[in-house]
């Protein structure tokens, strides 16, 4: 009996590590109950979720400043370090923004379920970032995926049901492939705890062929989650027909969480450069192909959401490129890039959602002459697009500049040819991306038409306020990058 008491006490201690996630679970239950009991519930639900996530952000920020040493919990199933806590902060901030974006659509059916699923994805993403065990990775990926399949169908129309089915089939197959890779890794190492010494030792002695096969299978599942080439094909369809607020969420939260765990896993798989394959070369090649596919396909799109889907694939390419440079500075620059990416991408989706809900705009041509009716929103749309393309004076420029400089540094120290090609590819792609990013502002400003569009005259509205805030953040990051950088510098990468 004493042993049991000790164990219970230990588990109680571990609750400290997952306090924000526990809080989210409680919030989720409360949301479901409120949905059952309260009649006029729209305002109550939104306020409750928003305040709840705000509290979660506070808890995570607390964790970020408190964890100077990595803390492991639940018998090494999860590991909390400041790297994970920083990613969690980014995710909480984007959840807050997405909740506000979702409120623009007053017609959203089943709002309570929608918010519950958003929170479920956030819980899964948080756990995924912290996981240090293959079982944890699989479980959290599935928590994210299953909630995402359901939320894709939440536009309740033909297209959304079809994209939900596609997402389900692709996603389930990808995670089955990843699971098989994990089972092969387990067979070779006899342990599931992948950062452990036993795992590394076993892999160093393993046969090259099974090792490569199992790594490739596991990476395939993770590449699917972040929509990297060649597992990006699901993204455009799902982004086109899922509810816009859900798309905004997909383009940031599961992607960044998947990316965070990818960095951890690849650092282990690389086996200090003694493995049979240099995985960072593979990552450089994937990054190049992802960039090319994303950018070249985006040029031809006339549907705004589809274009943003390809744009988000291209940004995955940039994140991977930054990671392929493989140094501590490179990882810091990736964190910087991720912070900027979430700000500008959510900003773009905010406006897309607004115009879709208010005026039913889906095509690029629909936006023509909009500067006359919506001068303020048009200008902030222009700034978001400039930032996504990576031009000054926006945060997008600073982020791309940092990523490219870390690739160059890495190339000049290691002399890896692939990094040089990656640099060239990245620069060329930045130029190509201008074509499609500036298309919408071009239509807005230089084309006339659409006199039928009547502006909703209300300057103190949510979209003006939130859009202005995000633009301010982007400009601030350009003019004072050291504020964000100073915060990232204190992230320790010890696993």
């Amino acid at each position: 009996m004493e042993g049991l008491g000790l164990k219970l006490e230990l588990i109680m201690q571990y609750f400290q590590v997952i306090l924000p996630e526990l809080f989210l679970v409680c919030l989720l239950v409360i949301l479901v109950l409120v949905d059952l009991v309260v009649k006029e519930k729209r305002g109550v639900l939104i306020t409750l979720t928003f305040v709840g996530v705000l509290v979660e952000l506070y808890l995570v920020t607390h964790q970020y400043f408190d964890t100077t040493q990595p803390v492991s919990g639940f018998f090494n199933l999860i590991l909390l370090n400041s790297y994970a806590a920083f990613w969690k902060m980014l995710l909480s901030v984007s959840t807050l923004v997405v909740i506000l974006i979702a409120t623009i659509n007053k017609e959203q059916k089943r709002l309570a379920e929608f918010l519950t699923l958003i929170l479920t994805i956030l819980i899964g993403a948080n756990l995924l970032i912290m996981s240090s065990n293959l079982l944890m990775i699989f479980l959290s990926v599935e928590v994210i995926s299953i909630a995402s399949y359901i939320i894709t169908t939440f536009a309740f129309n033909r297209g959304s049901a079809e994209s939900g089915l596609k997402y389900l089939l692709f996603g389930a197959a990808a995670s089955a492939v990843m699971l098989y890779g994990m089972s092969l890794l387990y067979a070779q190492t006899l342990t599931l705890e992948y950062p452990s010494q036993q795992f590394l030792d076993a892999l160093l002695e393993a046969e090259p062929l099974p090792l490569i096969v199992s790594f490739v299978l596991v990476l395939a599942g993770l590449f699917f989650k972040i929509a990297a080439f060649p597992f990006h094909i699901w993204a455009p369809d799902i982004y086109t027909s899922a509810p816009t607020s859900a798309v905004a969420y997909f383009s940031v939260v599961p992607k960044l969480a998947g990316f965070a765990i990818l960095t951890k896993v690849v650092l282990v798989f690389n086996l200090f450069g003694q493995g049979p394959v240099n995985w960072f070369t593979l990552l450089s090649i994937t990054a190049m192909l992802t960039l090319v596919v994303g950018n070249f396909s985006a040029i031809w799109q006339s549907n705004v959401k589809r274009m943003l889907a390809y744009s988000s694939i291209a940004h995955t390419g940039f994140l991977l490129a930054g990671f392929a440079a493989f140094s501590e500075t490179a990882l810091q620059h990736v964190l910087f890039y991720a912070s900027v990416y979430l700000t500008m991408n959510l900003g773009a989706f905010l406006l897309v959602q607004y115009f879709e809900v208010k005026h039913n705009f889906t095509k690029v041509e629909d936006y023509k002459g909009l500067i006359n009716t919506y001068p303020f929103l048009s200008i902030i749309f222009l700034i978001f697009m400039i930032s996504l393309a990576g031009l000054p004076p926006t945060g997008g420029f600073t982020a791309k500049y940092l990523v490219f400089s870390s690739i160059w540094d890495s190339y000049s120290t290691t002399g890896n040819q692939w990094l040089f090609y990656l640099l060239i590819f990245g620069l060329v792609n930045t130029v190509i991306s201008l074509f499609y990013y500036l298309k919408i502002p071009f239509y807005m400003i230089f084309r006339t038409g659409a006199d039928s569009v009547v502006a909703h005259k209300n300057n103190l509205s949510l979209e003006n306020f939130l859009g202005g805030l995000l633009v301010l953040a982007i400009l601030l990051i350009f003019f004072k990058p050291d504020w964000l950088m100073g915060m990232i510098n204190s992230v320790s990468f010890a696993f």
Partner: protein
Amino acid sequence: MIPIELYFNLSAFLFAVGLGIVITRKNAIFVLMGIELMLNAANINFVAVSQSESGLLEGQFFALFVIVIAAAEAAVGLAIVLKVYSYFKTIDLDRVNELKG
């Protein structure tokens, strides 16, 4: 005692069959069944490795979790398939393809 290689062969075979079904079949329910086979292929690996060494339980736990996840996925999957059927009156994946791309 069955040698462990046989289990690995069996699971590789199952995985290949599952993947083949997922790629070639046009019926959404069949694809879901193929995915189920792939998951169970991984389960066989986990359990076989786990029983080959004494005191190694992680694999068996993993298999249990996978079974639960597979059930959850099938529930969501069938719900979505029903939804698609009510819109399209078919679950043939070639005909449920109106979004270009």
